[in-house]
């Protein structure tokens, strides 16, 4: 046998002649398939859940980047007409000729009538003026190279759409004349061009064609200010007509959605951690069991360094081999969750996420690196221990003693992290600090758990009278060190379930209640145009079963420099009785009807820190009778704050009269209609037929409610699915820990059996002890879960979404989870216990022989 005592280089350490060391090490796994299984499942789960969520995040980020590439007038500095009118081509040219780096934008929508009507947002751009000296940049990749300005600007012109929209349009174009696809002024069909960078339902074309389609001859909707640092004041003659809007970065989609992804990432990290706990226990056990092998190898002349190197090589080989299937499972999980995720992001933030998973090679690379990194981290402590053990003779007594010392030390660190969590909770204000609180709460609980369990079991031991019972308690205490990793995994999974479950359930209750209040009218309708709206009003007022028509109108304005959505409603008992107000001054509704008072949504109140009674200065477009074009402002009092779940933007609600008085251009469009409940569906179908309204334009209360609830469910689908997966992984962790433990149990059980306790009794005691520990863990998980749910509801949600929720508790959930913990513990214990039951007396006797 070669003696490689102190090899000088890695290559000689890993030379083929020393491959037999690897062979000897790896053979251990073939003899212990359960351990290998634990390692594989742990690592597989960790890699899959982590990489799955990362795939979702990556997909979403890619979509945001694409969205950022679109003309999002909210996020870009721009000029608008102060009167909410279009900007004339002449004013645009005047600005350009004074050196202003502006480029015109024409926005509007075209209805494409066919078997079902399709509404497309038309964005007209002027590509030449978009380019200025200071904006020079290298052409970005990702778009087809056949993009030609020549074709874009000349007949028949081009329209750029997303692949999905192109599919819809192609059908219409193929049908030649009867299709409703808009033609160019020469009566030709424009060329359809496809780019994945364009949002669904959006159509980008040259400003000329957009002006023609939107009937905006020589007019632009707004002018983009390409250099927001351009500080020249507006020319005097234009200053009265135009306004420069420099948006706040608060409205950035990616900032808003960051919170959502942070949420998912936090959950996936937790899953990764739980998976790693399994990996840790498998490696730890495997190293311990190979101590004799280590002695043999060292006596054969293998150095400590060689052994370490080969152990690491072995772990990297195994984890590398598991990473690939782990990534495939991760991909599969991501593809299952993506549709819900994209729906909820669209609902929450209006962010469009493509529902097709496209992953870069970096994702695969990262996944493999995570698997390796995770394995090495999990193996770090066991390997260090192995090194330390070199000259130590350990007795079982000193083990338990050292464990007590360790528990104490861990519990001190645990309490310190708990204190840190409290401090962050007190001083932190950001969303990230919210997640830090959660991290420290988890850390603290994980570190305190062994100590707490030990103390609880010690209490039980004191109370126990019978010897067997005393043995049960004290033996359970002895097992805490071996099971603590699995129990910590169980604790984390259970408390997350309680926390997240409580938050979601609480939100659902609040949301559904809110929805029921808010959807007080029976039918909701959106008209195509103000003219049609009037026509519909006339028709409805003659309808015998309609008891009230509640029109609402909307307009945009600025509060300071924050764009807000203005809603005008007809004050009616329907609203007064039902509209869900979070806080209101006395007689809020009368104030709104009579005075210059408004209601604002919770998001706006939190964003701008507004309270009841605050005065808002709003710009309005009403030209004063003095005849000047000066922009006017009006003060409004905040009379109430209402909850507005799911709305990403700030909203101000006022009476319809007030809205029209100051914003005459407000567009009337939607109605709430009160009608006898048995007349709902006849009315809906009458409206659809008579005014040619689509299914989405007229909706009964139930349909709106169902749609909203569906959106809600999808929002939390990913969260709940991940949650469930974490719980599953924790159960497997517990199971595998017990399985590996059972083989070591013989030496401890054999003396008890020798004292006359039957195998059946032993089996029952084993089961009881395990259930006891699972139960205690579940008991500790409940307050922990409540703390987590409080953090989510009162800290993270407010910072992430802009609304607070009541903190509700759901004891029934706790019961279910405790039961499920017990059931999984029961099944986890079943096989080892059956093994004990089936073990022959001779095997139990062997326990004495092995006991040193």
């Amino acid at each position, binding site marked *: 046998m070669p003696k490689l005592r102190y090899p000088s280089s890695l290559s000689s350490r890993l030379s083929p002649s020393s491959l037999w060391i690897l062979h000897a090490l790896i053979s251990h796994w073939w003899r212990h398939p359960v351990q290998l299984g634990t390692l594989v499942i742990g690592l597989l789960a960790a890699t899959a859940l982590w990489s799955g969520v990362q795939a979702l995040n990556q997909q979403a980020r890619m979509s945001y980047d694409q969205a950022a590439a*679109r003309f999002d007038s909210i996020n870009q500095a721009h000029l608008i007409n102060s009167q909410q009118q279009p900007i004339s081509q002449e004013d645009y040219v005047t600005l350009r*000729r004074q050196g202003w780096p502006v480029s015109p934008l024409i926005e509007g929508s075209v209805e494409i009538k066919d078997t079902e009507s399709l509404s497309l947002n038309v964005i007209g751009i002027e*590509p030449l003026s978009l380019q200025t*000296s200071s904006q020079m940049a290298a052409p970005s990749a990702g778009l087809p190279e056949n993009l030609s300005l020549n074709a874009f600007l000349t007949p028949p012109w081009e329209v750029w759409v997303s692949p999905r929209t192109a599919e819809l349009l192609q059908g219409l174009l193929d049908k030649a004349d009867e299709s409703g696809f808009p033609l160019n002024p020469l009566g030709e069909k424009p060329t359809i061009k496809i780019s994945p960078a364009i949002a669904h339902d959006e159509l980008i074309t040259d400003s000329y064609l957009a002006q023609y389609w939107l009937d905006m001859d020589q007019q632009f909707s707004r002018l983009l200010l390409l250099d927001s640092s351009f500080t020249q004041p507006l020319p005097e003659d234009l200053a009265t007509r135009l306004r420069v809007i420099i948006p706040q970065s608060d409205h950035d989609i990616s900032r808003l959605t960051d919170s959502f992804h942070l949420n998912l990432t936090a959950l996936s990290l937790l899953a990764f951690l739980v998976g790693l706990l399994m990996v840790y226990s498998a490696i730890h056990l495997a190293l311990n069991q190979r101590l004799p092998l280590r002695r043999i190898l060292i006596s054969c002349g293998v150095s400590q360094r060689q052994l370490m190197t080969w152990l690491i090589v072995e772990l990297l080989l195994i984890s590398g081999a598991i990473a690939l299937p782990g990534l495939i499972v991760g991909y599969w999980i991501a593809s299952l969750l993506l549709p819900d995720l994209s729906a909820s992001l669209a609902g929450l933030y209006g962010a469009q996420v493509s529902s097709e998973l496209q992953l870069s090679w970096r994702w695969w690379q990262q996944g493999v690196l995570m698997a390796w990194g995770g394995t090495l981290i999990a193996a770090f402590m066991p390997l260090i221990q192995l090194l330390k053990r070199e000259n130590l003779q350990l007795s079982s007594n000193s083990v338990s003693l050292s464990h007590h010392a360790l528990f104490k030390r861990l519990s001190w660190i645990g309490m310190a992290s708990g204190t840190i969590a409290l401090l962050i909770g007190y001083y932190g204000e950001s969303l990230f600090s919210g997640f830090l609180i959660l991290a420290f709460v988890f850390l603290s609980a994980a570190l305190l758990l062994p100590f707490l369990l030990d103390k609880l079991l010690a209490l039980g031991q004191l109370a126990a009278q019978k010897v067997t019972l005393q043995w049960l308690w004290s033996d359970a205490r002895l097992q805490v060190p071996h099971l603590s990793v699995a129990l910590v995994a169980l604790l984390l999974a259970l408390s997350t379930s309680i926390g997240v479950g409580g938050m979601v359930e609480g939100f659902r209750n609040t949301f559904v209640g809110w929805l029921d209040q808010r959807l007080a009218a029976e039918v909701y309708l959106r008209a195509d145009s103000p003219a049609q709206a009037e026509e519909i009003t006339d028709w409805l007022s003659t309808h015998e079963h309609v008891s009230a028509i509640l029109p609402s109108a909307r307009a945009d304005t600025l509060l300071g420099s924050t764009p807000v959505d203005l809603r005008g409603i007809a004050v009616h008992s329907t609203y007064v009785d039902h509209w869900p107000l979070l806080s209101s001054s006395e007689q809020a509704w009368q104030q709104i009807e009579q005075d210059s008072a408004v209601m604002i949504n919770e998001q706006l109140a939190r964003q701008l820190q507004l309270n009841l009674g605050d005065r808002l200065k709003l710009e309005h477009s009403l030209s004063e009778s003095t005849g000047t074009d000066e922009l006017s402002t009006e003060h409004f009092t905040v009379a109430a704050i209402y909850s507005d779940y799911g709305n990403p933007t700030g909203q101000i609600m006022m009476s319809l009269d007030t809205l029209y008085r100051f914003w005459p251009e407000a567009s009337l469009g939607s109605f709430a209609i009160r009608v006898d409940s048995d007349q709902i569906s006849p009315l809906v179908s009458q409206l659809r037929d008579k005014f040619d309204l689509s299914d989405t334009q007229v909706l009964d209360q139930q349909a709106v409610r169902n749609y909203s609830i569906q959106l809600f469910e999808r929002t939390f689908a990913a969260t709940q699915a991940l949650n469930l997966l974490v719980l599953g992984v924790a159960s497997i962790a517990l199971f595998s820990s017990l399985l590996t433990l059972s083989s070591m149990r013989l030496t401890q059980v054999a003396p008890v059996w020798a004292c006359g306790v039957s195998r059946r009794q032993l089996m029952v005691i084993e089961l009881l002890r395990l259930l006891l520990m699972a139960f205690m863990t579940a008991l500790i998980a409940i307050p922990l879960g409540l703390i987590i749910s409080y953090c989510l509801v009162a800290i993270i949600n407010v910072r992430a979404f802009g609304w607070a929720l009541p903190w509700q508790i759901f004891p029934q959930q706790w019961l279910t989870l405790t039961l499920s913990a017990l059931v999984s513990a029961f099944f986890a214990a079943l096989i080892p216990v059956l093994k004990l039951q089936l073990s022959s007396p001779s095997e139990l006797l062997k326990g004495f022989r092995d006991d040193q």
Partner: protein
Amino acid sequence: MISKIMKCLVLTAILGMLLAGCEPNNQSTQSSQGFAGLGAEAEGFAQVQPNPVITYPEALAMNPDYRIEWWYVTANLETTSGEPLGIQWTLFRQAASPSPQREGLASQQLWLGHVGLTTGDQHFSADRYGRGGIGQAGVEMQPFSAWIDHWSIEAVDENANEFILKASEILSGEASFGYELTLQKTGPAVLQGDQGFSVKSPQGQASYYVSLPFLAANGTIDIEGESYEVSGQAWLDREWSSQPLAADQEGWDWFSLHLDQGDKLMLFRLRHTQADDYFSGTYITAEGIPHPLKPEQIQMQPLRQHQVAGRPVPVEWQLSVADFDINLRTQALNPDAWMATGIAYWEGPIRFEGSHQGWGYLEMTGY
């Protein structure tokens, strides 16, 4: 923030059509369409023919039936304290499609402006793009005026004997530059080539080419907020064509020189990828009488390469013209006069010594 799609639209489009292959590394587009697309096929556009009748000031007017044209001014100036400097002002027009001309935003006329200012140790450049048909950029006559955004050249009178030239730009950060000059015509307009028909390749590519080499310049320049009085001599070039370059011409080296005693010299070399370079030029007497030069009379020899914008560019030249006793050695005032615009090239003032001495301008493209 400009959207990515637009960056791409604009850049690929302008690079791909108006100025194809301006990217220095984009050899394939260069070789198929010549530098900046100037060698692209010109079907449907009016074609340049020999023996034109070109008069002044009508030569300043826009010719929308031709695919491309430009109004191009350079000036060698000096501050009151004697610091030499130069400015450039160019307006390009390019038609996206042949006639008929469309009105308003539908107009196929696309405009591009370039301005530069070069001192011994500083160089500024900027470009602007514009749409025809709506007044953002264009050319009008009676009196002549040409503009894109706030950059303009305007004739003071209908005969176009005096011009006001203006440009200014705020670059990123604190950098800004600008100038406002009066250009006084002190000599006649000069027809280049054969009566204004200027051949650009052995295959017969050509353009109409008229110069105003006799312009006295006075005015002010601004550099980062500081104003300086300047004076000197300027040169205006007018050129229009539908296919001025051969497809394999990858760039040119063009000189305009103010010789002592008031004579002028224009020389250029068009570099072919697949054949010998093409030389042309005109010797103009102080009275404004042009003497077109034959290719074999001209020798242009790069002497020193200078690394600018990551590529070697010849900033020193040996120039000689047989039969006119011209033998010059030129040197750039600022070797870093790189126009970092959408289509990038080197352009800046030069001084020369030898048989004559004086100042001029050098433009080198396709490096």
